């Protein structure tokens, strides 16, 4: 979706605010939310792409107003209800309903390190042939899906060159909506800064984006 999260090339966001010696978590609740998020993700009721999409679905004004971990907290509250870990009534009362199912095993200390080691759903799959070759000129497709996509607006319709084939990965546009993994090759595609931003950009510079087969077409 053409959400406010798709920030590449937006202007007027101001200078970068740099904080020296910043802590990993600024407040205790941020660390707890981080850990709750990782633990519940390990229960596999949703995948990484669906996770990202719930954050993208925040109303734009809220997305911009909220701090990073506030977005995580608010969407986690939504997600645990949407995917059936918690009922709306339990969220409102703060208490587990009598007789509510607790069958799902909690992520334990022992399993948490194992889960931390497998955060990304993707794989090398020699059974999926690449549709494009390194060195080939390609165009990023001009798509504007209502759902999740990892093809930023600033690259759509632009021409580039395949710089590297990274192997096979799950396709986020379908996986986020539980419509299948649609495994396919991902490439680093080099777009010149002038192709993306026009003549005022440096002729030497370029942006590399990671693109799935389904984001590309032949030139």
């Amino acid at each position, binding site marked *: 979706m053409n959400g406010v999260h798709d920030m590449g090339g937006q202007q007027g966001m101001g200078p970068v605010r740099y904080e020296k010696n910043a802590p990993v978590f600024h407040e205790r609740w941020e660390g707890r939310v981080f850990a709750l998020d990782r633990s519940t993700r390990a229960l596999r009721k949703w995948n990484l792409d669906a996770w990202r999409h719930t954050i993208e679905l925040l109303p734009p004004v809220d997305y911009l107003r909220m701090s990073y971990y506030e977005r995580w907290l608010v969407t986690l509250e939504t997600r645990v209800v949407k995917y059936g870990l*918690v009922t709306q009534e339990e969220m409102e009362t703060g208490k587990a309903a009598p007789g509510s199912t607790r069958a799902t095993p909690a992520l334990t200390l022992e399993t948490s390190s194992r889960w931390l080691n497998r955060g990304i759903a993707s794989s090398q799959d020699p059974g999926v042939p690449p549709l494009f070759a390194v060195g080939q000129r390609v165009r990023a497709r001009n798509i504007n899906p209502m759902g999740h996509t990892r093809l930023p607006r600033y690259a759509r319709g632009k021409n580039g060159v395949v710089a590297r084939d990274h192997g096979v990965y799950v396709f986020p546009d379908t996986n986020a909506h539980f419509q299948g993994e649609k495994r396919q090759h991902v490439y680093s595609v080099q777009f010149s800064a002038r192709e993306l931003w026009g003549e005022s950009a440096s002729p030497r510079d370029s942006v590399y984006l990671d693109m799935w087969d389904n984001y590309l077409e032949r030139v």
Partner: protein
Amino acid sequence: MADSEGSSVDRRGFLKELATGAAAAATPAVMHAQEHDHQDVPSDLTLRAKALESLLVEKGLVDPAALDALVDTMENKVGPRNGARVVARAWVDPAYKKRLLENAPAAIAELGYTSGQGEHMVVVENGPNVHNLIVCTLCSCYPWPVLGLPPVWYKSAPYRSRAVIDPRGILREFGTELADDVEVRVWDSTAELRYIVLPERPAGTEDMTEEKLAALITRDAMVGVARVTLPPSGGNA
């Protein structure tokens, strides 16, 4: 109800930020201003996080000890010191550097760094004529095993919006001036690849041990917003 309370805290933080005027440059991002208020009562977000945690614990869905372990891992076990050791090794050991550029996850695992968000790391090398910069315009993708969790600025709207359209301007804000004939390569982490910059080894470090070199290497240099430099000398270089 909870939402309106959250908004008022944010608005207060925002107004406070505006009021600080010229001092704003030295303060954290606007969106994080409220986090630095020292409040006598727990914030709305603290209470919401606690309520959610206690409910999920009561339902047996999460284990408090596992939560503690996850926080401890991110606060104490991963971070840019890991990446600095990888870079220092690459500087002193050409065979290691070759392995690192060809298969970063395997080479990084040689040093024992294997935790999440790093299954598909790619190392990009700076040189006299090439400067690399890492960003995630869509969210906050970052190589956790070698750099830890990303800083606030990396996840912020100003960095995410401008890194791709005005990388030289971003670099200038970080004090990194590039000559016109240097090629800038920006890597937008749109998939599950996680990028790390192999910075240039500064001149004058030829006699340094790997350990001393690692102490010079910063997170910012591995994201590509800065170079590795020698510390200002106290009179004898």
